[in-house]
């Protein structure tokens, strides 16, 4: 369980997060939605340690993690898949995967075993092992990014706008990979611009605006709320990406 308690954070020009209080359930998929600039990605950055909050606490299973470095957060079991372009394109897929295990680099046996396990779940990391990551297709890159985040066996995975810039078909790959991950017992906290996509995939939905949580509820409930549709979805027809409708 992750608990944000009145978290404030920003990049120098005022706080982007204006006191976020939020509880993220174990072993579920939670999706944060909200307009651009609401602070969704910033929420992930403070949790993963890329940005230090100026106030408030973040507890992971009761232990504070808000003052830790990214490496320490990762060691505590929280891995983040960065936004678009997070692979090291000039390194091979294998080197990328090895770096996913950077923290356990001294435990050769454990690292090797873990890479073999992941290769079974995501075959592309074996079939394209010696290709530069930049040469993979968009969908394959996403899969490798997901697999890389799983090397250290994290209990929580953070996804930062996983569908940004992806075409509908690759979105399906992301959809399925996220479910695969969750079925392996991983807690997923994701941020998504594509509201329908995110809430279809998630169990819980969180709506943020202007650096605060407006409300949190089961995802299907949020999807059905008419006022939500008016506020965030526009008056769009009832089709959406994952189902492949145009």
């Amino acid at each position, binding site marked *: 369980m992750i608990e944000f308690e009145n978290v404030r954070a920003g990049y120098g020009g005022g706080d982007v997060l204006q006191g976020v209080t939020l509880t993220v359930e174990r072993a579920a998929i939670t999706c944060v939605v909200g307009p*651009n600039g609401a602070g969704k990605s910033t929420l992930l950055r403070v949790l993963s340690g890329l940005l230090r909050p100026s106030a408030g606490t973040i507890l992971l299973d009761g232990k504070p993690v808000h003052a830790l470095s990214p490496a320490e957060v990762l060691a505590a079991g929280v891995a983040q898949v960065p936004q678009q372009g997070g692979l090291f394109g000039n390194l091979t897929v294998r080197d990328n995967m090895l770096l996913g295990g950077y923290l356990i680099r001294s435990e050769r046996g454990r690292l090797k075993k873990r890479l073999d396990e992941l290769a079974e779940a995501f075959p592309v990391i074996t079939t394209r092992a010696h290709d530069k990551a930049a040469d993979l297709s*968009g969908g394959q890159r996403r*899969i490798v990014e997901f697999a890389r985040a799983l090397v250290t066996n994290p209990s929580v995975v953070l996804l930062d706008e996983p569908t940004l810039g992806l075409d509908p078909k690759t979105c399906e790959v992301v959809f399925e990979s996220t479910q695969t991950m969750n079925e392996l017992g991983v807690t997923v906290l994701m941020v998504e611009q594509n509201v329908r996509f995110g809430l279809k995939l998630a169990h819980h939905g969180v709506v943020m605006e202007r650096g605060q949580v407006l409300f949190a509820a089961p995802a299907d409930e949020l999807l059905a709320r008419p006022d939500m549709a008016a506020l965030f979805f526009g008056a769009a027809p009832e089709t959406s990406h994952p189902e492949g409708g145009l």
Partner: protein
Amino acid sequence: MSAETSAPRRRVPKRWLIGLGVLAAVAIPFLTPSSYIHNVLILTFLLGVLGSGWNVMSGLTGYVSLGHSAFIGVGAYTAGILASQWAVSPFLVAPLGGIAAALVALALSWVTRRTRGVAFVIVSYAMLELLGLIVRNWSSLTGGSQGLLMPLPDWDVRFHNWPFYYALLALLLLSVAMTSAIRRSKFGLGLVAIRDDEDKAAGIGVPAPIYKSLAFMASAVLVGVAGAIYGYYVSFLTVSTMFDIVLSLQVVLAVLLGGRATVWGPVLGAFIIVPLAEVTNTSIGGVDAGAFRLIMFGGLLLLVTLALPRGIIASVARLLDRRTAQAGARLASTALPVAPMSSRTLAPGTDLLRVDGVTVQFGGVKALDNASIVVPAGSITALIGPNGSGKTTLFNVIDGTYEPAAGDVVLNGKSLAKLDRTGRAFAGIGRTYQLPRLFDSLTVLENVAAVNDRFEPRRLVHSAVSGAEAARATGLLEFVGLGEYVDAAATDLSYGQRKLVELAQLLMLDPAVILLDEPAAGINPTLLQRLAELIRSLNATGRTFVIVEHDMQFVLALADQTTVLAHGKVIASGDPATVSTDPAVLEAYLGDDFVLEPTTGPRP
């Protein structure tokens, strides 16, 4: 390096201060006969001229030069050699020294015309060393390591060093006036745009090669003249004093200390550095004096970069003029204003833009494979396709970023093949980027005012933001809904607002075809609706759009016709309803040809 471009506000006391300073500088030779003080001021003026020149190239345009003192050497040796060959006063041929320096600068801009930042630094250093070597080795002309003796002054001793003093003072004032004029001109706006993002600048009608050549020549010419006078003043030219790397360091130091990209920063810096150097020169003597000088200047430069990277003027100005950041205010949901008319409207239906059989190859991959599209005037064309299908590459071919291996781009019946990016902007191609690219050290209004729809030498000297063009830029910003933000810094805008500024830039350019690269990506639904309305109303005035987009609801609702790319090939085109039910499109774009890894599929 980031540099302040906003002018200090307090004009009246500043004007008095400047007037008093100039008056004092003019009066000093009459007030004190001390040749020591005259000498210090002469060297200060020299460094001020050199600094002002360096500032145009390295402060405004962003091309850091580490060999700027070479222009002093070029000016001094040109004037020295010509004066002795023609037996005239070096004063008479000093302007030729300036011309020689400008020609060297022109050559320098030619050598570096295809490179950016880093390479320029290296070439500027190479230029200094190479010119020094040439002068040293070409001893028949330059006296080589023996040095070159200048004629003795031919005026009455009662006038002391006054001719040198006043000539260099005049050059300094001229340098400051020139920098100030450039800063306030449309040319100067273009230089700052080049510093912030040269490729983007090229795409909105700033012809970077011409601007850079002019800026480099402007930064060298007065330095060359000053070098000629300085050479005459020291009366004996040697390579080590005329092509002095330490002087190149001092000029960087002086300008950084005073304030980079400011008008008076180089002068302020020179008035600090030269007296400091002279004081230490007289207090430290002996064999180690040179070593201490190096340690002092090197250490000072280090200190300035660590402690005062913005320089004195900008730091003080920031204290006086704290700009409060505008926290993401919401877009006003006012009614849409009337769309500005375009001057390029064509009869609807004629083929405006044609891409004919374009192929682009990256390594072994064909990013575009014999792709053709036709865009009728007044239409909205949606360009869709899976990731990596070549949509953005196609934009890059149309705007001249990439040269295709085969095929042609034709606008209004004319091939664009021979035009560079700026040429295509003038011809009528305008585009936005997936991630909006603005000039971050300019205000929102300046970002729009920096746009040129054609190149005219006369316009270079136009005032940057005033008059009819500024009014037009303001009007366009109001049209896109950013009327309240004209004076905001570009960096204070949100992501979505930056996209709107890019659109306003395009309207300023007023191209025949507007290419939008994923306008809907990453912006919120309210803004998305606004954007759709803007595009519709602009289209209603006859403007033509090509839109790359993944948000199908957004783009298919707008488009008159749709082209689908897959693996670099056009697989379908036609009206949106037909295309979106075309089996080939469904197969390629939405269907199952993408091989999912079996185990990543849904589990039973």
